[in-house]
C-alpha cells in the first residue's frame, strides 16, 4: 500500500506493507543506512530520527503512522555535515565504534532545537533512551554542551575558527606523560 511522507525535505512514496517499521523503509527501501537497527523494541535509540521535529524511534513505528509527516534522518540533518552537534561530535572525538552515534546525534539535535542551553538534567532526560555500548557517555554530555556553544556562536554570526585543539586538550583531566 503506497504511503507518502517527506524524507529529508523530499516528498517520498513507498509501496510496502503498512506495518513495516519506518526504520526498514529508510534502510532497505530508501537506502538511507545512517539510521541503525539495534533492538527493534525502542530500547536502544540507534534508530532515532526526527518526525515533525521530534526525536522518535523508527524501529517500532509503522510507516503507515508516518503518512503525511516530515521525517529527517542523520543524512538530512545538515547539508554538509556541519550541524553544530555533528561538529561538536567530531571535535570532541566522541565516537568509538560509532554505531549508535547517528541516533545520539538525532536525539541531541532535537534537544538543542527546543532547549538552546541545556542543563545536565535536560541532557539526562533527552539522552537516556540512547544506549552506547562503548559507553562514550562522558563525551556525549560534553559534546552537547559544546554544540550548544557552537550553535550560539553561529547564531551570533561568529566565525567557526574555534575548531582548534584547545577544547580537545581541555578534555584531559590530567597531563599526558610523566
Amino acid at each position, binding site marked *: 500500500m503506497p504511503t507518502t511522507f517527506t524524507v529529508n525535505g523530499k516528498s517520498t512514496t513507498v509501496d*510496502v*506493507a503498512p506495518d*513495516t*517499521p519506518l526504520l*526498514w523503509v529508510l*534502510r*532497505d*527501501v530508501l537506502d*538511507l*543506512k*545512517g539510521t*541503525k*537497527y*539495534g*533492538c*527493534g*523494541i525502542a*530500547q*536502544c535509540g*540507534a534508530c532515532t530520527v526526527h518526525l515533525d521535529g521530534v526525536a522518535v524511534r523508527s524501529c517500532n513505528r509503522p510507516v503507515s503512522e508516518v503518512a503525511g509527516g516530515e521525517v529527517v*534522518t*542523520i*543524512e538530512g540533518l545538515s547539508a554538509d*555535515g556541519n550541524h553544530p552537534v*555533528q561538529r561538536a*561530535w*567530531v571535535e570532541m*572525538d566522541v*565516537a*568509538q*565504534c*560509532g*554505531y*549508535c*552515534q*547517528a541516533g545520539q*546525534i538525532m536525539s541531541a539535535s532535537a534537544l538543542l532545537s527546543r532547549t538552546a542551553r541545556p542543563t545536565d538534567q535536560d*541532557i*539526562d532526560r533527552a*539522552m*537516556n533512551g540512547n*544506549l*552506547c*555500548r*562503548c*559507553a*562514550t*557517555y*562522558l*563525551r*556525549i554530555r560534553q559534546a552537547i554542551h559544546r554544540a550548544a556553544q557552537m550553535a550560539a556562536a553561529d547564531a551570533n554570526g561568529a566565525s567557526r575558527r574555534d575548531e582548534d585543539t584547545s577544547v*580537545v*586538550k581541555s*578534555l*584531559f*583531566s*590530567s597531563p*599526558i*606523560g*610523566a
Partner: protein
Amino acid sequence: MEATQVTRRHFLQVSALAGGGLLLSSFESVGRLEAMGLPQASEFVPNAFIRLTPDGMVTIVAKNPEIGQGVKTMLPMLIAEELDVEWSQVRIEQGDLDTTKFQAQSAGGSNATPTSWLPMRRVGAAGRAMLVSAAAQTWGVPESECTTGGGAVHHHASRRMLPYTQLLAKAATIAPPALDAVTLKEPKDFRIIGRPTRNVDAQAIVTGKPIFGIDVTVPGMLHAVYAKCPVFGGKVVSANLDEVQALPGVKHAFVIEGTTNLSGLMPGVAIVADTWWQAQTARERLRVTWDEGPTVEQSSAGFARQAAQLASQPPQRGLRKDGDPDAALASAAKVVEAEYFYPFLAHAPLEPQNTTAHYRDGKLELWSASQSPANGRRLVSQTLGIAEENITIHLPRMGGGFGRRLGNDYMVEAAAIAMKIPEPVKLVWTREDDTQHDLYRPAGFHYLKGGVDAAGKLVAWKNHFVSFGQGTSFVQAAGLGATEFPARYIDHYALDTSVMPLGVPTGFLRAPTSNGVAFVVQSFIDELAHAAGKDPVQFRYELLANHTPDAPSAPAGPPGAQTPGGGRQGGGPQFDHDRMRGVLELVVEKSGWGRTPLPKGTGMGVAFHFSHRGYFAEVVQVTVSQAGQLKIDKVWVAGDIGSHIINPLNAENQVHGSVLDGIAEALAQEITIERGRVTQDNFRNFPLLRLVQAPPVEVHWRVTDNPPTGLGEPALPPVIPALTNAIFAATGKRIRSLPLSKHNLAW
C-alpha cells in the same frame, strides 16, 4: 629474527609464500610490484601499507579490523610518524583480509599496540629511507647528510629541498632496506605519536555514511534471517517451509542441517526475502519442530547445585601449590572463608551480527563484521568444503566487538545460505538472536580460604575454582592460569579446580578471565585486609612487596588460560609488582584515598589488576542511601601501559568505555539458562549502561620505560571489585556475587 640470515628478496619470496614472517612479509619487492602493475611511473609504493601519489597524499592501509578500539587511526599514525609526513596528508584505507601481505589481521587481546609498535614504525621508516636515498642520489650527496620533515627531504648544507612528490618515480627504483636495519626516530622527535588524534572515520560516522557491516549493499542482494533452536545445538525435525515460502517477498526458505560445533554452523531454517522486514515477518509464521537434544536439561540453578557439590569434594586437579596452605591456615590468627560467583554474560555489541555473502562460479565473496576474519575463512572453508583461496573477505567497520566477533558463526551461516541460492544475500540477526545465541562469558564459582597471621600478614590462600570443561580442559574462556595473581605473592598458596560439562557456547568477552577473576581476587583481598585490621591500600602494598623470586614454579597454564594472540590475564609470568605499586600509589594520590573521613553510606573501594600487559589501579567512591539506592560518585583510574600513550585522545575514551563497561556488567547484567535456553532476549532484560548511570571517570597515566601496550581491555577488570569494595566501605555489605541488582544494599 632469522631475517638477517637471508637476502631481502629471497626472504620476501619465502615469506610471501609461507605467509609466515613477522615483519618482512609485509614487503613486496619492487620487481614484483611492477609485475603486478602497482606502481605507476609517478606513484611510489614502498610496501603493502603505503602509497604516495603526486597529489601529495599518502594513502596508508589499516590492516586490522576496526571495532571501535581506534586501531584504524592508530596503526597509520605509527607509519606516518616514521615516514615523516604531515597527518593532514594522510588518507586511510581499510585493508581486506590478505594473509600474504599482512600479519595478524584480528582485533583481540589488546594486541595491536604491542605487536605493531616496532613493525609499523619500521614500515614507515623504510619508505622514508627510500625517499632519502632517491634525494641523495639526485643531489649526489651522502644519505647521512639528508633529513626529512613536512613531507620533503632536506639537504641543509646546500639548502636544497625536494618534496616527496618529486621523488616518487626515483624512489620506486630503490631497493627497500631490510626492515630490521632501518633507523627509527628518537622519541623526542615524535610529532604524531603522542598527539591527540581524532578518529579517522569521525566525519563518516556523524553524517551516517554506510560504513558498517550491516550497511553493506550488493546489487541484486536479498535479505536473510536464520532461525536456530533456542536450545543450543537443537536440530530441525520439520518446518512449514511451503507456507513460509508463499509469504510476501519470500524468495527462498530452507533448512540448513548444520554441524555440532556450537560456535560454528548450527542447524536452522533460513528465510530469504526481498527485504529484511519481509524475511523477519515471515519468520513469525515459521513453525519448526525441533529435536532439542540433551542440553535441554541444563539450567543456571543446576550449574549452581553441581558447583556446590563439586566444592564439597576434593578438587579434580591442582593448578598450583606453594608451601603448605593447609598448615598455614591451621596456624593463622584469622581465617576467612568465602564463596564467590560471577554469571554468564553476553557481549551485546549494538550492531547485531551480520554478514553479506555472494557465491558464484565456485568463489565466495564475504563482507563480514568479524574480529578474526582469518579464523572465519577457515571455519567457512572447513564447514562448507570450499577452498580458502576461493574465499574473499572484506572488512567493514564493526558496531562494537567486545570479543563477540572473534567467533564467526554468523559468517558461516551467511556463507551457507549464499551457497544455496544464486543471489547475493545479507544475513542480519535480530537482537533476540544476538542475546540468545552469543558465545557467552562463562560463569565461575570460587571457593576461597585465606589466613592472616597475628601481625596482619596474608600468609595463606586457597582457591577451589569450579568451572566448565571436560577432564583437564576448560571450555573456551573458562580457564585460569597458574600464575594468576596473587600466586607468587603469598607463601602458602593453592589453586585447584573442578569442572562440569557445559552445552552452552562460550567465548572471550573484553578482558577475558580477568573480567570475572579480578572481582574475586581483589574482593577477597579486601576481606582479608579487613580481617587483618589494615587499610586496604596498605595491605595491598605489603602483598606486592611479598613476592617470591619471579620464576613461575607451577605447571604451565591450562589450555583455556590464553586469550587469542597471547594476551595475558591477571598475573602472567611477566607481572611486575613495581609497576603495579606505581599505579596504586598514583591512584591513591589522585583520589585522596584515606585523607577525608567519609560519612556512613559513602565509601571508597580500591582494586588493581594486570591484564593484556597493562597495569591498572582504580578507586571508586559510592554513596548508598539507607534504602539501598546505589550512586557511583566517581571513578579514579591510574594506568601504566608503557612509554607512550600513542593517541591520548582515544586512550582516554577507551578507558572511559572500559570502566563504564565494567560498571554495567556489575550493576545488572546476567545471562541465565533455563531448560537449556537463555532467559534474556533483549536490552529490556540484559541492560546496558545508560547515560544517567555514567559517573565521572578521571584518568591518569604513569609513563614508564616499557614498550607501549594495548588499551582495549586492561582498564576494565579492576573497576568491578573497586565498586563492590566501595559498597562494603559504605554499607558494611560484602558483595560476593554479581550482578548487584540481585542484592539488597539497604543499611
